[in-house]
């Protein structure tokens, strides 16, 4: 593809298209949020379970939200977890930051199908007094595989 493209400006066509767009705006907004996509509610449910287990520091419950192999892309090289019990001491690291819990600040499905969702999220880390001390973006890939919905891969911008 070259660095330039040509576009045609047709006011009458534009007026007609704009009118149609305005009429359809409500429907379009609904379509963009993947409301009818099968994986959407599962992606929210699994990431809810993920964070609840994380905040309980319950590694067993946390890993039940994973598919294995499970991919974590945070440091290099990426980690391929082939089964439970292979994670770093994440809670020890967080304790040194004064971490008490994390919360989702935002979650949004950006691509979705019957068996997979790509979710972009922002999570916050909080001190015991409830103050937010860090906020990072992350990406979660949730899939239906082996009969259950789980997180296959996650990639965050946390250091």
């Amino acid at each position, binding site marked *: 593809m070259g660095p330039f493209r040509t576009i045609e400006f047709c006011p009458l066509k534009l007026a007609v298209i704009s009118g149609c767009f305005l009429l359809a705006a409500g429907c379009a907004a609904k379509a963009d949020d993947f409301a009818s996509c099968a994986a959407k509610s599962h992606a929210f449910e699994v990431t809810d379970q993920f964070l609840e287990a994380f905040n309980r520091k319950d590694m067993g419950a946390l890993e039940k939200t994973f*598919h294995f192999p499970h991919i974590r892309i945070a440091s290099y090289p990426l980690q391929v977890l082939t089964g439970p019990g292979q994670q770093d001491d994440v809670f020890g690291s967080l304790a040194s930051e004064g971490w008490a819990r994390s919360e989702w600040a935002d979650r949004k499905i950006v691509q979705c199908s019957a068996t997979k969702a790509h979710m972009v999220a922002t999570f916050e880390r909080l001190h015991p007094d409830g103050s937010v001390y860090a906020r990072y973006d992350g990406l979660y890939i949730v899939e239906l595989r082996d009969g259950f919905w789980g997180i296959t*891969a996650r*990639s965050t911008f946390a250091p």
Partner: protein
Amino acid sequence: MMTKARARGLIMLAGAGLLAGGCVTFRVENAPAGDAVFAGCAAYKPAYQVTDDFMRTFNSKDATAWGSTFLFPSVRLASNKLTVINSAKDLESSFDRLGAQGWDHSAWSMRKVVQCGPTKAHMLTTFVRYRKDGTVISQFDSLYIVELRDGRWGLSARSSFAP
């Protein structure tokens, strides 16, 4: 000398002409849709460059060249299967598999950075597979993770909705 009234009249006439069906053609720079908010992010341009190189080398059907756009190990999530790619050699079978479907080349129909940092970008894409005669075989959404590692930008992972 043109009077203000005459100038106004000409503008109105031109506007009416345009509304009546006239079209004006502009030549504009290709701009990725909807991700301008990340244009100042360090990983933004590398994400486009890596995925440009990825597609160009993929279409060359040269596994070594294609592999140079990856960071190994790289992960592929597609067809409900997770594959860890450890070297360019692991990519060689892709061309035969796609060739059997009549594939000749692919192209991006959409790319959009949705999360971005100094060393990583998450990019949504839609790619199209074509036959040699230019007809479309299929089109799928996918996600690409591009990172800076050991001084080089490359592809860490991709996840597509291809069956």
